[in-house]
């Protein structure tokens, strides 16, 4: 048993008053003449046992009455039956992740969760403290009506949110609630991916409601991206689905449908496009709808530009010429003088440059790099073979390469390391250049002999030399993302602009493509898609779910009534002040009865 107002226990000291009076009653009093004292002595003599018993009983009744009233004033709470629930700090954690929007038996699971939470809120009284914490850790606290209103407004998120963080936040609120009785009440669909790891409760007793519902078959687009992200102007859209049956799909680019088709189970959707549009465009891959609509569409962003004009520096060799010819035939580059491909001794931005074939040219190459403003220089010659690690370079080996080192300290974000050999950078890219540490010759690297040579070169040109320095960032709804240093405004899917000042900020809740603006021009994209795990509707059993929580007493149930009944009283601690008050009054009533009834009757 504990007390909400323990200072009131001081009142219990008043219980000593009747005790002291009882002990001192024969020693105090004012002298009064009374001739008939013989009758008094006789009365005491004849009723001494009865009087002593009655006095003792009265003393005990008074002492216990005072103690009971003092206890009532101290507002005790304890694990006893009866009485209303103890004043409780309770946070309801509402799992409103995307998966709860799935429709089962004609209604979203979220509606069922909200109904249960609404019933639990109905058990709150004025002495409770109440909060609603949603899966995105947003908190609404206050009166039961305010929390109920917030519950009514709560919609399913576009993503998974972070239930673990929400629970931690709720536990923090409850612990800081200033009430000794604390409870977390969680309503969730029990999705396995949402409760993948153990959730610490930090000593806050918790009840979990996870309705037992059928798991509908769900198909989702779990990836969609433009290949490469910068089309010049040709490119492809690749998407992966979880469909277990053939399903129709639709690929949209900008406001137009770019392709439709049917994808078989296990196959990727690959659509090659050469749109007439230019610039940054939003795209989506969409399946026909099922019970969970939120993952039937997935967004991507693509930058579409004209084919860059590329020329090969004389003497670079056949590998470069052949590759450029192939890219030109595919429409991905045009022949021209904008972008150079050649040895570093002829470096001039923009271009793709390789280490000199002849070591004698190393000094000239470094001077040319310096003149071109490329902040790198070739160093010591290293020999292999050694595997090259980098995107699109699987199986490529370096035979001879120069150690690349920055000429000056590089500013973060200005250079991309495209590939490495061991710990040495092998291919680096920056503003208007791609620099490779090996000569474009068979004695330098086997890259030109590989099938990946032409695609790699095409990507290098499209991604780093096509005149757009923008980038694509992918994030889940609510995830913490970094703002590009040059961007201060975000264009939302509905065309509205939103100022962004924080260096890091939570990604928008609504899935879609958001564009970073440089001035008034789109210069990059933030693509928001739900987490892939949200499409997996596999649910934990009640026992499995209960086992996910640690650090406090937990009861999980799929019975809504039982869960609601446990709200505010799960700890079993109940307010006992009214019980003690009644007890005190009963004792006082008994004292009055003893005083009047038990004593011998007069005339």
């Amino acid at each position, binding site marked *: 048993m504990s007390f909400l107002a323990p200072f009131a226990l001081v009142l219990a000291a008043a219980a000593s008053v009747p005790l002291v009076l009882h002990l001192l009653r024969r020693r105090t009093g004012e002298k009064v003449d009374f001739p008939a004292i013989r*009758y008094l002595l006789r009365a005491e003599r004849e009723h001494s046992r009865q009087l002593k018993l009655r006095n003792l009983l009265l003393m005990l009744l008074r002492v216990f009455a005072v103690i009971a009233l003092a206890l009532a004033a101290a507002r005790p709470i304890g694990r006893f039956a009866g009485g209303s629930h103890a004043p409780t700090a309770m946070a309801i954690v509402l799992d409103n992740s995307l998966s709860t929007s799935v429709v089962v038996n004609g209604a979203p699971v979220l509606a069922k969760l909200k109904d249960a939470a609404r019933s639990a809120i109905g058990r709150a009284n004025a002495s409770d403290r109440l909060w609603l914490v949603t899966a995105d850790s947003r908190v609404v606290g206050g009166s039961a009506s305010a929390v109920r209103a917030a519950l009514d407004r709560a919609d399913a998120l576009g993503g998974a949110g972070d239930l673990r963080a929400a629970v931690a936040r709720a536990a923090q609120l409850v612990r800081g609630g200033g009430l000794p009785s604390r409870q977390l009440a969680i309503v969730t669909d029990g999705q396995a991916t949402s409760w993948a790891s153990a959730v610490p409760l930090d000593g806050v007793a918790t009840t979990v409601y996870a309705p037992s519902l059928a798991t509908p078959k769900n198909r989702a687009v779990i990836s969609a991206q433009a290949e490469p992200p910068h089309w010049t102007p040709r490119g492809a859209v690749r998407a992966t689905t979880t469909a277990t049956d053939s399903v129709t799909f639709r690929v949209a680019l900008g406001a137009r449908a770019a392709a439709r088709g049917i994808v078989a189970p296990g196959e990727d959707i690959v659509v090659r496009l050469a749109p007439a549009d230019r610039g940054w465009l939003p795209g989506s891959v969409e399946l026909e709808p099922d019970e969970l609509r939120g993952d039937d569409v997935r967004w991507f962003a693509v930058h579409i530009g004209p084919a860059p004009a590329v020329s090969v520096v004389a003497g670079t060799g056949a590998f470069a010429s052949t590759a450029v010819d192939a890219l030109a035939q595919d429409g991905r580059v045009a022949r021209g003088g904008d972008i150079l491909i050649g040895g570093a001794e002829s470096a001039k931005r923009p271009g793709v440059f390789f280490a000199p074939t002849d070591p004698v040219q190393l000094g000239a190459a470094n001077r040319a790099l310096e003149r071109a403003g490329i902040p790198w220089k070739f160093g010591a010659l290293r020999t292999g073979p050694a595997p090259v690690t980098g995107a699109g370079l699987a199986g490529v080996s370096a035979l001879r390469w120069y150690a690349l080192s920055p000429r000056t300290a590089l500013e973060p974000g200005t250079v991309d390391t495209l590939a490495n050999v061991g710990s040495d950078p092998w291919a680096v890219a920056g503003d208007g250049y791609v620099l490779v540490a090996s000569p474009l010759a068979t004695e330098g690297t086997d890259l030109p002999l590989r099938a990946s040579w032409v695609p790699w070169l095409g990507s290098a040109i499209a991604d780093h030399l096509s005149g757009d320095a923008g980038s694509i960032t992918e994030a889940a709804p609510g995830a913490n993302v970094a703002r590009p240093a040059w961007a201060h405004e975000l264009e939302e899917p509905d065309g509205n602009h939103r100022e962004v000042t924080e260096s890091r900020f939570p990604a928008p809740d609504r899935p879609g493509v958001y564009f970073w603006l440089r001035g008034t021009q789109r210069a990059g994209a933030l693509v928001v898609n739900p987490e892939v795990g949200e499409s997996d509707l596999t649910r934990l059993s009640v026992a499995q779910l209960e086992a996910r929580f640690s650090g406090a007493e937990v009861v999980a149930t799929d019975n809504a009534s039982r869960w609601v009944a446990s709200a505010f009283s799960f700890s079993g601690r109940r307010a006992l002040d009214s019980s003690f008050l009644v007890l005190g009054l009963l004792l006082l009533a008994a004292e009055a009865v003893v005083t009047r009834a038990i004593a011998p009757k007069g005339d």
Partner: protein
Amino acid sequence: MPDKNSRADLMDPVSIAALGRIEIIARWVVEGFLTGLHRSPRKGFSVEFAEHRAYQPGDDLRFLDWKVVARADRWLIKQFEEETNLKATIVLDVSKSMAWTGSPARVTKLAYAEQVAAAVSWLLLRQRDGVGLIRFDDEVRTVIPPRGRSAQWRRIINALEDPGSGKGSDAPGALMKAAQLVQRPGMVVIISDLLVDEAEMAKAVSALRAVGHDVTVLHVIDPAERDLAIAKMETELVDTETDASVNVMLSEVRDAYRETVQAAIGEWRDRLSATGSSYEPVYTDQPFGVALRRAFAARQHLP
């Protein structure tokens, strides 16, 4: 200093008027020459006419003045002036316990007892009976032998003004003195709070009864003594006569005390009734005439 005859606390005219309709009928036929109000076994004893009074149902028709009835159609009873054979002695307790009242709104037990004694004296003297007075505390303070003369009233009133000086009560001694004073069987009226030794008191009363006295005991009780009605919650009560004291939480013992007082009254009644005496508790918040009527009403049923 006001005349004793006009002292309102001693000569309450309202009480006297109320008592004027009481016919004291002796429960025990006392020898004497009583005529008038007293039924005498010696019928035809010579009398001297004194006055008429209105006939009342129950009056002996022998004393109806038929001449007046015939002449004026008025029913009058002839009353005769003669010396009665009844000699009464009032034994008044003036001990310290009597000089006590539980409330300033009431007279002390002693003052009340003196009122009663005066009233009884006047009543008896008015009927030409002999009245005497004995006042006692721890010793006999006043002794006035019973007489039926008019000066007796003055002597009794004067004696009632003397204060008692003792503390305790020696009622048996006073009663023995009364027995000595009245040689012939007569009437003894004891007015006391009876805070005396019960056995000794009963023995003395028995002795009086043995010689033929008609004994009436008026037990004067202050209501505070009956109910333990003292305003203090907790107090040390001190016996005014013995200085014995007791600490008590009044609310706790009040009911037991009341029961004890009632038991004591019952015991007195039983004990004195067993001797053939009359016993009446008298409370000082009642008109003393009421108590007197109670005390003497029983005699009306005696032969």
